[in-house]
C-alpha cells in the first residue's frame, strides 16, 4: 500500500501570465483513493490536464510508474496506464455504450488495420474478447443493460457512469475521475461512492476530483487540497477537514463553498 504509483514534483503550469499550478508536489500511492479538492479555479482540472498531456507543464516533473510523462503523446500516456473521465460529459454520442467502451479497450490491442481488413483470426479473436470485456465493465459499473443504446440517448446518470466504464476500458492503473457525481441526487451519490470503492478493490488506483465534500470525505483514503494553484493540505480526510487553512480557503470565498 505504501509504494507510490505516481509522483508530481514541483509541477508548475503557466498560461501566459497566469499561473494555474505553482510548485505542486504530491504522490499517489498504489490502490488508494486520493481525493483532490479545492474551491473553483483552484487548478484541479488543470492537474488532470497536465497528467494526461493536454497541457505541457512549464516546469517540474510527473513520474508515473517509474517513468517521466513529460513530452509523451497523449494516447501513449493512456497506454501507459492513465485514463480519465470528463467533467462535462464527452462521450461519443453516436456510438452505443458498448462501442464507447470497446474503443477504449482497443488501446492495448496489437491487431491493426491490415489484419482487421482481412479478418485475420487474431483480429477476430480480439474482437470477441474485447466485446466480452466491455460488457463485463458495463456490468461491473451497473449499466450492463444499456450496452446497445446510443450514448447520447442514455439518461444523464447512466452517461456519467458510462464515462467511468469507458475510462476503465483503457485498462488503466490510475483512473482519474473528474466530478463523477456532478448532478447526482444523494441516493445516487451513495451508490457511486460504493462503486468507486469497488473499483479500488478491483485493483485500480483512483484520483478523484469532486465538489461534494461529504462524498469525498466518505470514499477517500487521503485528500489533497489545492487553492489558487498551490497545495495547502495533504492528509487523511479527517485531518484535512480540521485544517484551518482549508477552512479558510473555503469560507474565505463563500460563494464557492458548494
Amino acid at each position: 500500500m505504501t509504494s507510490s504509483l505516481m509522483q508530481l514534483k514541483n509541477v508548475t503550469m503557466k498560461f501566459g501570465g497566469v499561473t494555474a499550478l505553482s510548485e505542486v508536489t504530491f504522490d499517489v500511492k498504489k490502490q488508494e483513493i486520493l481525493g483532490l479538492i479545492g474551491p473553483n479555479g483552484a487548478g484541479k482540472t488543470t492537474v488532470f490536464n497536465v497528467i494526461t498531456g493536454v497541457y505541457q507543464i512549464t516546469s517540474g516533473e510527473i513520474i508515473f510508474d517509474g517513468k517521466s510523462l513529460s513530452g509523451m503523446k497523449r494516447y501513449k500516456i493512456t497506454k501507459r496506464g492513465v485514463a480519465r473521465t470528463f467533467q462535462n460529459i464527452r462521450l461519443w454520442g453516436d456510438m452505443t455504450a458498448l462501442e464507447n467502451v470497446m474503443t477504449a479497450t482497443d488501446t492495448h490491442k496489437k491487431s491493426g488495420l491490415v489484419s482487421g481488413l482481412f479478418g485475420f483470426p487474431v483480429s477476430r479473436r480480439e474482437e470477441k474478447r474485447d466485446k466480452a470485456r466491455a460488457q463485463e465493465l458495463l456490468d461491473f459499473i451497473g449499466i450492463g443493460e444499456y450496452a446497445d443504446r446510443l450514448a447520447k440517448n442514455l439518461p444523464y446518470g447512466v452517461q456519467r457512469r458510462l464515462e467511468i466504464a469507458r475510462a476503465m476500458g483503457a485498462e488503466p492503473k490510475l483512473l482519474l475521475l473528474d466530478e463523477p457525481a456532478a448532478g447526482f441526487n444523494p441516493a445516487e451519490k451513495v451508490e457511486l461512492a460504493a462503486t468507486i470503492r469497488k473499483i479500488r478493490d478491483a485493483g485500480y488506483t483512483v484520483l478523484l476530483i469532486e465538489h461534494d465534500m461529504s462524498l469525498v470525505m466518505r470514499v477517500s483514503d487521503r485528500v489533497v487540497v489545492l487553492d489558487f494553484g498551490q497545495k495547502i493540505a495533504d492528509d487523511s480526510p479527517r485531518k484535512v477537514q480540521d485544517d484551518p487553512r482549508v477552512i479558510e480557503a473555503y469560507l474565505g470565498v463563500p460563494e464557492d463553498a458548494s
Partner: protein
Amino acid sequence: MVYGVLRMINFANSEIFMVGTFATIIIIRDLFKFTQASEPATGARLWLILATALIFSMLVSGVLSMLVEIVAYRRLRRMNSGVLAPLISAIGVSMVLAESVRILTDSRPVASPRAMEKKFIGQFFDAGVRIDNTIIVISALILFAVLITFVNKTRMGKAIRAVSMNPNAARLMGINIDGVVSATFLVGGLMTGAAGFFYVLKYENTASNIGFELGIAAFTAAILGGIGNIKGAFYGGLALGLLETYASFFLGTQWKAVTVFIVLVLILYTRPNGLFGEALTQTRA
C-alpha cells in the same frame, strides 16, 4: 467575417462579389451612360458617380447576401445540421447565381467603361502611385475602420460577437439570432459589394465566372490571417498579395500558386492558428 460568426465557409460569397461587380458596371454604364469612347468624368461628377456606384453595389450585394442566408442557410441552421449540409447548399446557390448571370450576359465578359482617368498622382519610392489605387486603399481603410467600430462599439456589433462566441447563450440572453445572422450577412454582403466596386474600379472588367478563383484567394487570405479575426484577414490579404507578386517575379508566374501554397502550409505548420489567430485548437478538456 461571416465566416467568423457562423464557423462555416460561405462559398456563395464569391458569387455575391461577382454580382457586386455587375452592379457597379450597371451604374457606370447604364445610369451614367458611359461608353468605351467617352471621356472620363472629372470633378464633382466623378465623385457622384463613384459614390453612387459604391453604394448601389454595396446595397445589392448586402441584400443578396441576406437572401442567400435565408434561402440556403436559415433552415439548416435551425436544424443544427452541422457544417457540410450548408456548404453543399451554398455550392448550389453559387451555381445558380453564376449560371443565371452567365445566361443573362450571353456567357460573355462585360467591361466597365472608363469613368475615371487613371492618372499618376505621385511617386512612392520608385513606383508610380495611381489615383484609382489610392482611392481604393483609402476607402478600404475607411471601410475597415467603420467595420471594426461597428463590431466593437455598436449594440448590433456586440450581438454579432456574442452569437459568434456562443449562440446558445446568446439566445438565452434574448438575442434574436435570426436577426443577428441576417445582419451579419448584410454587413458581410455590404463589404463584399464594396470589394466588387473596387475590383471594377481597378480592373474595369467582370464576367460571370470570376467569383470562384477570387473566392479561393480571399478565403486563403482569411486563413492566413486567422479565421474570424478581421484584422488578421486584412493583413492576411496584404501578405498574400505581396507574396504572390514576389513569387511570380522570381519563380515565374506559373509557379505562383505553388509557392503560395507551400508558404501557407509552412505558416500553418508553425502557427496553426494563422498569423493573428485566436487559439482555436485549444483543448476544452
